[in-house]
């Protein structure tokens, strides 16, 4: 889509989540702008995935408001809600593909359910998505158990892109991938975002991804977002967790690699 306005596609205000006595989020605010790649980082158990699930409505928050594409999903009519849900795509951690369907059928599921299209067009569209996420054409007729972890994630993205969404949610896209595969994935995210004009919301703890493909980074520590900024500036942030994360050996090498790449370019 090419409406290049600078409005916020996702806006989270005062979000609160608790499981029993355990408070996961408290007073969490976050905005995602149209056309950007925003990464949410934080330690394990900081509630990154819960935040993603609250935004897409899989988790009922205990407090606060979530607006996606200008609609408050909690109080929206089911029809309005469904219309908004069709404008985003979600890739879950291990792809969450339907295990008894082939990759091609997996991608066609949302098309068949939400749109009446001729079968040959649907087939061709599904093949296009497979090609767009960089899977070989012969992956189309394989079932998920025949694919590697990285291919399953790519197939998961292809299914998320089936309805040409405006927003793409990615839950830990590079976890469990080898460094080369992860780098390929970062590249894929940038390519897709640029060519399909997507807004990407990604949850990650991969510092390399943050420096290579993200426009802004939101840091989720102590139950709320402590800072949102570009990767370069966020690494200068004085918060102790951010310092520990970005000034640690892994953060330094990721930043160093980025510097080298910038010189090379």
């Amino acid at each position, binding site marked *: 889509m*090419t409406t290049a306005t600078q409005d916020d596609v996702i806006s989270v205000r005062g979000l609160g989540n608790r499981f029993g006595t355990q408070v996961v989020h408290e007073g969490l605010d976050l905005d995602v702008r149209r056309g950007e790649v925003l990464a949410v980082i934080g330690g394990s158990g900081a509630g990154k995935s819960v935040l993603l699930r609250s935004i897409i409505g899989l988790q009922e928050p205990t407090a606060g408001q979530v607006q996606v594409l200008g609609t408050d999903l909690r109080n929206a009519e089911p029809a309005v809600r469904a219309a908004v849900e069709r404008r985003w795509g979600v890739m879950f951690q291990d792809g969450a593909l339907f295990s008894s369907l082939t990759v091609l059928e997996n991608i066609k599921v949302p098309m068949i359910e939400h749109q009446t299209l001729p079968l040959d067009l649907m087939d061709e569209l599904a*093949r*296009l998505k497979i090609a767009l996420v960089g899977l070989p*054409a*012969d992956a189309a007729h394989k*079932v998920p158990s025949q694919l590697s972890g990285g291919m399953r994630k790519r197939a998961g993205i292809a299914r998320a892109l089936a309805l*040409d969404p405006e927003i793409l949610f990615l839950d830990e896209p590079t976890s469990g991938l080898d460094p080369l595969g992860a780098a390929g994935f970062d590249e894929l995210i940038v390519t897709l975002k640029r060519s399909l004009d997507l807004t990407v919301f990604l949850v990650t703890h991969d510092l390399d991804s943050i420096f290579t493909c993200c426009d802004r980074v939101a840091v989720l520590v102590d139950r709320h977002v402590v800072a949102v900024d570009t990767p370069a500036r966020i690494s200068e942030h004085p918060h102790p967790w951010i310092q520990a994360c970005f000034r640690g050996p892994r953060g330094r090498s990721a930043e160093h690699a980025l510097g080298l790449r910038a010189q090379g370019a």
Partner: protein
Amino acid sequence: MNTAQLDWRESGTGEAVLQVRGACTMQHLPELLARIEALRRTPSQLDLSGLDMLDSAGALVLLRLLDRQRRYRDALARIVDARPAHQALLALVAERVGVEPVPERARSSGREWLIKFGEAASGFAEHAWQLAAFFGTVNLGFWAILTGKRKLRMTSVVHHMERTGLDAVPIVSLLCFLVGAVVAFLSATALRDFGASILTVEIVSVSFLREFGVLLSAILVAGRSGSAFTAEIGSMRSREEIDAIQALALDPIELLVIPRLVALLVMLPVLAFLAMLAGITGGALVGAMALDISPTMFLVRMRDTTELYYLWLGLIKAPVFAFLIACIGCLEGLKVSGSAESVGRHTTSSVVQSIFLVIVFDALFAVLYMQMDL
């Protein structure tokens, strides 16, 4: 945003140019396709100067409109005045989608039937082979336990005895009680005309001791516990737990199969015995209520006409059935692969196979007993 408007105009060189305005996106695709359908002729050029929104699905539809033969790279040259972003997307789609057309697998239907038949036949043979091999593996496992090379997991055995045996007692007894009553009713109706209602006693007691007690409990256990074995072991398989067991240098046969098998070997005869009692009780109750055969008379008649070895003829079948049910249930579970559908398919197959084989073996026993004049 509105669905794209399609208007014809003549270009300077007299070619038919189609002007596309508005939105060409997934959301509006069905309407757009309807409008394209109404065009009736293929445009030679597309003018996209008025296009507001385009996504990859819309781009593909526009390319298809230009060239029905799917030569999208040629079609790209016949698009004019597109915005740079739209042009880039069209180029990407044209490049990617044309890469490798996957050929459709076409088969003639007669040949397809033949292939299916052959696949089924070879599948059946392979299946029988696997089952025989598994019987052997399990027997080896047993031997290893008897010679003390492996341990028998007593906790697991007792656990499965409770689940497959004790928990099945109510349903097995109730069912056999009802079947006993039905058998008594049926035979009484047929025998009354001959004044031989008293023979109902023999029919009920002999049929339950020799056949129904053990057969009904085996069928129920196959449906109840055989399916549970397959589903349990199958979901362990699909979550790589079986692989983990092997990687820890443990033996899935020893850990998962033998305890279930031993539990069934012990419990199925017990269940079969209870089933016989319940069936005969059902018959006796019908006799007392509807046929004027008092319980005392029923018992006396039973003592006089029914041989004790009928009980052993029935009970000796129980361990055989238990072995079949446990082996098939566990083997099907171990054969599960990855998907959720596979768990369901193997569970179905496990129940069907074990009930089938239980009935086949029951028939073999009947022939054997007949030959032995028992």
